[in-house]
């Protein structure tokens, strides 16, 4: 094959190659996004569990008190800024 023909083939390969890489990885983006959404939908309790702070409960401080204290702190911060 002469160089001219080879160059045309290489150019074609460059185009097809880049397009395929982008298409494939874009598909993967879609799939990952969809998967993450599905997982977070069906796994709500699993995700929220570690966010609670059981240490307060074990010390016997009622949730209402924590809420009241948090609100007070928030208001104090607001007033002082």
């Amino acid at each position, binding site marked *: 094959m002469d160089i001219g023909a080879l160059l045309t083939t290489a150019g074609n390969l*460059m185009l097809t190659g880049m397009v395929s890489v*982008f298409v494939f990885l874009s598909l*993967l983006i879609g799939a990952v996004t969809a998967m*993450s959404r599905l997982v977070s939908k069906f796994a709500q309790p699993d995700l929220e569990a570690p966010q609670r702070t059981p240490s307060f409960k074990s010390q016997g401080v009622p949730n209402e008190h924590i809420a009241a204290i948090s609100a007070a702190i928030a208001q104090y911060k607001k007033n002082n800024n």
Partner: protein
Amino acid sequence: MDSILNLWHATGIANFTFPGLIMIAVGCLLLFLAIAKNFEPLLLLPIGFGAILTNIPVAGLSDPGGLLYHVYYVGIDTGIFPLLIFMGVGALTDFSALIANPRMLLLGAAAQFGIFATLFGAILLNFIPGFEFSLQDASAIAIIGGADGPTAIFLASKLAPDLLGAIAVAAYSYMALVPIIQPPIMRAFTTSEERKIQMPELRKVSKKEKIIFPLMVLTLTAIFLPAAIPLVGMFCLGNLMRESGVVDRLSNSAQNEIINITTIFLGLAVGSKLAADQFLTVETLGILVLGALAFAIGTASGVFMAKGLNKISKTPINPLIGAAGVSAVPMAARVVNKVGLENNPHNFLLMHAMGPNVAGVLGSAVAAGILLALVG
């Protein structure tokens, strides 16, 4: 008298050839780079030693029946060694950063332009007398731009076994040179303001997502690009062993013992391809030049893609992280972090750069699959 003469003919001194000695010097240079300069020592040390062994006359380690001949035949000719390494890399890779921000895959895709542009460049070199690269040769050389050793060796063993030694040496040398090659290119194509951009913290990724991810990559590859399955399949196997959490023993073996043993023999086998008649050619020079070009183009196209994404994205994206799309895990991500810190001492980009970095590994495996499907 005859026996003395025979003994003389069996010594190395009587049989050394000039090209053979040069190749032993090349082997010593690789050893020097590995030991004194710490350039990818895990690979360059066995490669350098293999190069010395294979060029020792009379011993015939690379002739049919010799040790290195068998190691090459078993491990590289069959493609098994690079695939075992890929399994280990899969077991070492944490995809959290990519799952948290999947758009980073686009950066991994953009950086593969280095591969395809170099393919074109390799064919262009044919205009210079002395170069005769076929499309297969050009593809195998271009994959150096994927900045991924096992992928480069795998593809070269399939498409251009004659050039394998030079391609592997170029690939690993340039990976060691990432901290020198990339920063000037990154600085040239970004403004100081862009380099200061801070990115929001990544969300936490659940274990379920991490387990599903390799299975999903495998499924998509099986559907759309089965030619990439050897690489992607082994990679996903390693990653699933890691993330599933139920086979820690296997995952640890893949990350440590298997990858280490394979590395020794992979290095030796690559070194055995550094024989004078195959390496001391003008084509090797061409491969070294093209390899550097592939790295540079890949880095630049990753940065440009990140700039583009930053313009259309709601959350800011620091263009520097595009440079990590060439893979070379984790070196490229560390380089991004370093260049980012130079401009803003509070801007830690490492985790953000890991996304495009591992996306680059997938991207190069996909590009290798495409090249195998179209050229192989």
